[in-house]
């Protein structure tokens, strides 16, 4: 009996522990804000909460938190889907066919270390200010994690799985769709999760490019120009929450659909 009770209590104590630091920071922040008494550097907590609690209210004529978040999400989804649509087929081909790997590998190795934001000037020169530029930068951010994980996933498909399919009479197309794709799917999914996270970071940066006039990135830059520190902080919190939310969603689908990966061993 004692043991049965001890375990959950220890667990509770540990889960309380992870709230300790955030609470300490909030209290410290509030004390510091009162002491500084300068809302342009550190606003009081309540002013940030006030912004967060009115997510549909217009902010500085730029639309509300929600409309700007929706704009950012739309952009990130577009860039992310374009990246996935190129990276997954390319990764599967590179993993399956040696020639394709030889052709693309050196180019990919060369482009991979370039941070997505280093593409900003080129994107502006090529596509001008607007959606295409942003989609390009977001896509660049999402592309490589998806590509590399897809490649890894395809390489991790057991040789026996493929040979079994060949012996049972599978054609190449069927091997790709029924063995390699499902076999690599858990790792591809990891790539999509990581890729989405990076794409989300890139959209905020892309929206800070000159000439942009919507999105969460634009909102916080514009709030800075107007000296609205509570809006900056509220915007950052929304960015963080949306990021965590998607990560959680990806992980939940992973647990639900790809649990065989862990149980296989």
């Amino acid at each position, binding site marked *: 009996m004692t043991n049965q009770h001890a375990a959950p209590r220890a667990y509770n104590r540990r889960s309380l522990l992870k709230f300790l630091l955030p609470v300490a920071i909030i209290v410290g922040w509030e004390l510091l804000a009162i002491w500084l008494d300068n809302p342009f550097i550190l606003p009081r907590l309540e002013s940030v909460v006030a912004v967060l609690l009115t997510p549909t209210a217009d902010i500085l004529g730029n639309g509300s938190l929600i409309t700007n978040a929706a704009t950012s999400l739309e952009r990130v989804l577009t860039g992310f889907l374009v990246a996935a649509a190129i990276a997954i087929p390319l990764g599967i081909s590179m993993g399956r066919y040696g020639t394709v790997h030889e052709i693309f590998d050196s180019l990919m190795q060369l482009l991979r270390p370039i941070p997505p934001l280093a593409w900003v000037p080129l994107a502006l020169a090529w596509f001008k200010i607007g959606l295409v530029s942003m989609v390009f930068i977001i896509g660049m951010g999402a592309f490589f994690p998806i590509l590399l994980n897809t490649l890894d996933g395809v390489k991790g498909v057991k040789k*026996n*799985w493929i040979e079994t399919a060949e012996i*049972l*009479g599978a054609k190449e197309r069927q091997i790709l769709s029924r063995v390699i794709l499902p076999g690599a799917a858990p790792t591809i999914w990891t790539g999509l999760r990581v890729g989405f996270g990076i794409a989300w970071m890139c959209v905020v940066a892309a929206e800070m490019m000159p000439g942009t006039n919507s999105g969460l990135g634009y909102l916080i830059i514009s709030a800075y120009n107007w000296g609205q520190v509570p809006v900056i902080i509220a915007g950052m919190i929304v960015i963080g929450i949306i990021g965590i939310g998607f990560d959680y969603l990806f992980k939940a689908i992973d647990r639900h659909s*790809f649990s*065989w990966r862990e*149980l296989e061993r």
Partner: protein
Amino acid sequence: MTLSIEHLTKEFGKNGQEMVQALADISLEIRDTEFVCVLGPSGCGKTTLLRIIAGLERPTSGRVQIDGTVIEGPNQKLGMIFQDYSLYPWRTVNENIAFGLELHGVPKEKRHRVVQNYLALAGLSDFGNSYPHELSGGMRQRVAVVRALAVEPSVLLMDEPFGALDAQTRNMLQRELLEIWEKTKKTIIFVTHSVDEAVYLADRIVVLSRRPGHICEVIPIDQQRPRDRTSFEFARVRRHVLDLINQKCSFP
């Protein structure tokens, strides 16, 4: 069904320099519905022999013919069962068994009927919707066997299929395999390194020597089935096989 292996050799190249000979001049006729065990020490090339018969590897010289056609790639007439079962972990037992039928565009209702038959044959009727990781090793290998049978090959190639199982499960699966063999009238080529297993199962035992593997002895086992491992007769045959191997093939 006729299967003939003619002067088969296999060499593996190490980066184009030193060649390693895995198989040396193997010739063997396999009769219809025969149960042949290929017995040999590890590294003698018995798996390579099986993979060449399956069409997964090319011989360096010689050829394998089934019903008069030279085997040049995977062939519907040959089914293969690997030691690690090689089930698709993202598919249920039903879906694993149906895999080969799906590839050939067999309609859903027929697939369902065939799968139910083979599930029953494997004694797994209650596990159709389970995933491989929910099954024991013995159950997984049963699924692999009926998955191979579902596309109706005439020959089953088995690469140390029970090698990863505990002794009791192995004995049980050997017994079940003989029942399936008698029911379905397949020809079976079964690779093993266990003399006991070979004596229990085979019509003929083909003993391979150390690398480069060549056939050093073919031993017919005439004993009636089911064979009783604890009987004096079984011990005598087993002793005879071991003696032949010791004298002629120089490995225990």
